[in-house]
């Protein structure tokens, strides 16, 4: 019970911290719209509404992913700059219980991006969002947010040890768009890329959202997405003690 309370309060606290900057909030909404515009213009060549909806959902999840991947590193960097990283590490709970809410708060911001992109597609490009299974659609979004947060957590474990690792988030931003099948179906990618796609929770989250919207069966995809998310958290938790030990040994926690 105490663990759940700590996770929930930590998430709320970090979400409040991020939401306090109107500039950053606006940036999170506007930034994905540029990519969405490119996607819509590309896919508008075909007149099929389903294709446009495919692109609309893809670019919405692209925004969600960008919000998580780029800001997870930034969040840890901010903890370093503010000198709060040491304060967090020196507190009694397992550091995973402190770190996970931070990355979950980041991925929650991704919901803003999703809503903004879908609304942009609807009102600027006239793309109708028809959701065949609304409940499954909502659950798929929540599951995808959780798995993005879990992947962000895995990144953040690295950021705790290496100061410059925030750049990893930026490095992974565009490749995951591609190999996660956000805009291009996976079958069009080379075969050797597919195992990498399957190891990424965003791939399955994207599928689940599309299936629930277009009338397919989202549950297997969602199950894979959540299972991978759980896997990322498990690996992150196991690695965290070692990473923190190295940071305490090398005295890198207080460095900015």
């Amino acid at each position, binding site marked *: 019970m*105490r663990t759940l*309370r*700590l996770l929930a*309060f*930590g998430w709320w*606290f970090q979400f*409040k*911290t991020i939401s*306090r*900057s109107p500039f950053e909030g606006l940036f999170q909404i506007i930034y994905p719209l540029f990519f969405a515009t490119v996607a819509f213009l590309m896919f508008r060549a075909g007149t099929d509404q389903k294709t446009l909806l495919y692109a609309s959902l893809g670019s919405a999840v692209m925004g969600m992913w960008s919000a998580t991947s780029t800001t997870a590193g930034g969040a840890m960097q901010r903890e370093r700059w*503010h*000198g*709060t990283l*040491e*304060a*967090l*590490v*020196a*507190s*009694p*709970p*397992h550091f995973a219980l*402190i770190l996970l809410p931070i990355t979950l708060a980041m991925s929650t911001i991704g919901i803003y991006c999703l809503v903004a992109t879908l609304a942009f597609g609807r009102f600027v490009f006239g793309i109708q969002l028809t959701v065949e299974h609304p409940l499954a659609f909502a659950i798929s979004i929540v599951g995808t947010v959780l798995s993005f947060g879990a992947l962000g957590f895995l990144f953040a474990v690295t950021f705790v040890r290496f100061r410059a690792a925030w750049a990893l988030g930026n490095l992974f931003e565009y490749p995951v768009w591609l190999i996660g099948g956000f805009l291009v179906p996976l079958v069009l990618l080379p075969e050797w890329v597919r195992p990498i796609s399957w190891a990424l929770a965003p791939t399955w989250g994207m599928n689940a959202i599309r299936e629930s919207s277009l009338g397919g069966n989202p549950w297997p995809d969602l199950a894979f997405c959540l299972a991978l998310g759980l896997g990322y958290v498990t690996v992150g938790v196991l690695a965290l003690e070692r990473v923190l*030990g190295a940071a*305490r*040994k*090398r*005295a890198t*926690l*207080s460095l900015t």
Partner: protein
Amino acid sequence: MAVVEAIDLHRTYRTSTGTLRRKWMDVEAVRGVSFEIEKGELFGLLGPNGAGKTTTIKMLITLLIPTSGTARVLGHDVVKDAREVRRRIGYVFGGERGVYERLSGYDNLRYFAELYGVPPKEQKTRIESLLELVGLKGREQERTEGYSRGMKQRLHVARGLLHDPPVVFLDEPTIGLDPVGARELRATIASLVDAGKTVLLTTHYMFEADALCDRIAVINKGQIVAHGTPLDLKRGVAEGTVVEIEVFGMPDGAVERVREIGGVMSASVEEREQAQMLIVQTEPDVELTQVLLSTLDGASVGRISKREPTLEDAYVSLVSSDE
């Protein structure tokens, strides 16, 4: 059993120079520090900047792993039982960093109350009483980015006491505070001991250590060079005379030459607006004024005075004796 035990602590940092041909070197920040702090004691770790105070305190609060040696807090090893140690200690770092600036002081305290496991029902009353204690009552809903340095430092103190820890580590808590703020904070520190807490205070202000601490360890270049009660330390260097010479334009190397004069116990220089003050402690019954003036290479000299040694002279003598 001592509440805090440091046994032969060493800490070496690895640092590098150059970009392409990188050269690595080891810097020994702490070299064999040992001390014990008993229950209810206010123990001072006194030393100049870079002496190893913060490194020592960071090893004790589990943020750094010692290169060698051991340390225990309330019987728990700081490396093997880090989580047990963290539950039982509070710590306060001086300076403005370490707060979430976009959020209010109250939000900051709520978050750390959760992290330190303060029961939800007690959080509100606990935070309110601490805000009262550190003088932030009425300002707690403001964003901390608008707080002055002193307010942030007082917020640190409140955060360090949220879970009512039996042991408190204070790392230069009054640094940068105005005189009134520093005096108020010192009164708060004194009240911690009255409340039965064990406190380790690091400072480079001699008068602060003298006013607050039951015992002091003077640390310099990573080693403890003296320890005892403030009275013991004063006794150690209470002999002799202090000669103060006001010099306008201190010649290069003059202080080093003064230190080599027979009968000189210590020598230091303080900057005073237009001039420098050469402060020399000499052995008893030795008259060195003329000899000292001859080492100044004809530099303009203002006021010359003599006085009895103070505790500050004791400190200067200790930290400059092996320079």
